[in-house]
C-alpha cells in the first residue's frame, strides 16, 4: 500500500519532467492554445490514474496519445497557431517561420519542432509518437524540405 503523501510526491516528480515535454509535443502538433488544453487534459488523466500509469514503460508516450485524442476530437478544424518568433533573437529567425510550420502535416511539424527546436533525440521522438526512427527521419527530411521551399531558403 502506498501512502497518499508518497503518491503525490511521486506524481509531482513525474509532472515536473513530463509536463514540459508533453506541452512541447502537443503545442507543436496542435498549436499553443489547443496544445496547452490537451496537455492539461493529459495531466489530469495522469493524476487520476497515476497508480496505473506510473507502471507504464512510456507514460509520456501514453499521455501524448491521450492529449492527441482529446485535441483531435475537439479541435480538429482549429487553425494551428504556433508561438511567435522572437524580435531580437540572435541568431535571427525568419518571421514567416510559424506560418510555414503550420503548413506541414501534423507529424512533420511535430517531428521537425521536437528535433530541431526542442532538441529531442530521434529515439525520444520515436518513443513519443510510437513510430520507428526511420519514419521519424522521413518526416524530418520531408518537413525540412517543405519548410525550405515555403521560406525560399536553400540551406
Amino acid at each position, binding site marked *: 500500500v502506498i501512502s497518499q503523501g508518497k503518491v503525490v510526491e511521486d506524481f509531482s516528480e513525474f509532472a515536473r519532467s513530463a509536463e514540459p515535454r508533453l506541452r512541447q509535443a502537443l503545442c507543436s502538433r496542435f498549436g499553443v*492554445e489547443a496544445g496547452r488544453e490537451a496537455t492539461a487534459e493529459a495531466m489530469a488523466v495522469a493524476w487520476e490514474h497515476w497508480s496505473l500509469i506510473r507502471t507504464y514503460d512510456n507514460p509520456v508516450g501514453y499521455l501524448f496519445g491521450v492529449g492527441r485524442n482529446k485535441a483531435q*476530437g475537439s479541435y480538429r478544424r482549429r487553425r494551428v497557431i504556433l*508561438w511567435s518568433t522572437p524580435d531580437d533573437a540572435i541568431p535571427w529567425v525568419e518571421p514567416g517561420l510559424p506560418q510555414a510550420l503550420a503548413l506541414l502535416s501534423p507529424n512533420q511539424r511535430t517531428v521537425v519542432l521536437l528535433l530541431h*527546436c526542442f532538441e529531442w533525440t530521434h529515439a525520444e521522438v520515436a518513443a513519443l509518437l510510437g513510430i520507428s526512427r526511420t519514419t521519424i527521419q522521413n518526416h524530418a527530411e520531408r518537413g525540412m524540405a517543405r519548410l*525550405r521551399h515555403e521560406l525560399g531558403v536553400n540551406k
Partner: protein
Amino acid sequence: MSVDLETQLRSYRKNFDSEAPAVDVPGRTDDLTLVLDTRPSARGAWRARRGLAVAMAAALLIVIVIGGVGLIPRPVANEPDPNSVPTNEPDPNSVPTNEPDPNSVPTNEPDPNSVPTNEPDPSSVQSNGWIALTVAQGTDVEAQGTDVDIWLVAFDQEPRRVIGTDTDTVDELCPAFSPDGRRVAYGRFDGQNAELAVAATDADGSVSDPIIFEVGDGLPPPCPVWSPDGSQVAFGVGRTSPINPTTSAAGSEVWIVTLSDNEVTVLPDLLATDVEWSPDGSLLAIASGADQVNPGNVLHDGRIYLYAPGSGTMRSIDATLGATALTWAPDGRRIAYQGAAELRVIDVETEQQDVLDTYSALHGIGPVWSPDGEWIVYQRCDSTTGCGGERHEVVLVPASDSPDGAEGAGEVVIHAFVETADGARANLFPFRVTWSPDGRYLLYVAWGGPMPYSGVAAVPIDPDTPTVVLTDQPGVVAYDGYDESTFVPIQTWGTRASN
C-alpha cells in the same frame, strides 16, 4: 545575413515558454479523488475535466475575443458549435437534434398487406425506407478491399452509391442511420488516417457532405453506433487490427462523440469487439472479446463493461468471460451475448445468466434481439449441410425461458431461398443477419442463390411472403470495419421515429 534553418529553429524556441506557459497540474490530495489500484475509468477524468472547465472556458473566451476559433464550415445539418465549452458531460435533457419531419414520406415501406407472424409493436419504430450497405468496388470477390464505398438501396429503389467514388482512394464503410433516420454516421480510412463522418440524409436518399472527426493515424476506421436519442455515437478504437496486426492492443479505447459540441469521451484500455447502447441510452455495453479470438491481446478479457454516461461510472459483468458480440433486450434488463460456443442471456443487475443454445460456427454468430423482444436471431453452422463452404443457417431462439428449460427448445431454423434466373430454388447463406425496424424481415448480407459472391436480401418472418433480393451486386462487404469485428451492424436499416 542568411542563417541556416536548423539554427533558426533552435532560436525559435525562445518565445515558447512565455507564450505557452506550463499548465496547472493536479496533485493536491484535496482537489481530486485518486483511485488507487484499480483500472482506469472515465469517471475520474470527468471529475478532473469539470475542474478544468472554468480555466478552459476562460481560455476559449480569450481566443474567441481575439480572433475567433472556428471549424471549417461544411454543409451539414447538425453543425457543431465551435464556441461551446467542452464539459464532457452529456446533457441528460438532450433531445434528438433532428426531429423527424412529419411531411417526409417513406418511398418504400415494406408491403403493409403482408401479415407477419411476429407482430411488432406498431407504435415503436418505423422504417425510413433505406438500407445502407458497404460495397467494395470491382466485379468479383477478389476486388474487395480495393476501394470501399457506401450505397443505399430500398424495396422499390435500385442500389445507388451515395458516399465515395471509384477514384477517391478512401474507404467509406460501417454506415449507421441515426434513430430519426435523418443522419448517417460512418467510418473513413484513407490508408493512413481513420475518421468518423456524419452526414445528413434526405427522404430521397441523397446524402450531404459530412462533418469529419479525426480519430487518428494508423487506426482502423470507426464503426459508429448511435445512442437512442441521436445525440452521441460510440465506437471502438482498437490499436491492434488488420491494419496494425503486430501492434499491441495496449492503448485501445472506446470513444463516445457528443455531436452537439464535438466532445469526445475516451474510455481507456478497452479493446472492444462490440458496443451497443441500452434502449434508454443510460448504458453503453462494451464486449471486450476473448483471448482465444485474438491470442495475445491481453485487453480481450471477455467481460462485458457497462458505462453510464450520466454518471461517468463503469462496471464490469465478470461472469461473461468470452463475450465477443452482444445485443440488448428491448426492455433494457438483459443482454444476450456470444460466449465460447454458447449463446447466453444475462440479467445486467443480478448477473444471473442462462445458456440459450450451444453452437458451432465459422465466424461471428451475431445475436440480435428482435424489436418486439420475443426472439433472438443468430447464425451457426448449417445443421443439414454442415459448415462446408461457410454455410451457416439462421436461427430464431425464444428470448424467454423455454417451457422445458432445454437448450434450443422452441427455436426456429430459417432456411432462406430465392429463385434463380432459370427458375430453380437456391439457398441463401448469411454473413450477417439483423432485423428490420418493424421486425417483419431479417436483413441478410448473404451469398448463394443468384449471388455467387454477395448481396443483400430481406427475408420475411412470414414464410408465405417471398424473400426480396435487394441487390445481388458483387463486392457487398459482409463485415463492417475490418476483419476482426464480429458484431452485427444493427443500424443499417434506417428507422424513423413515430410521432
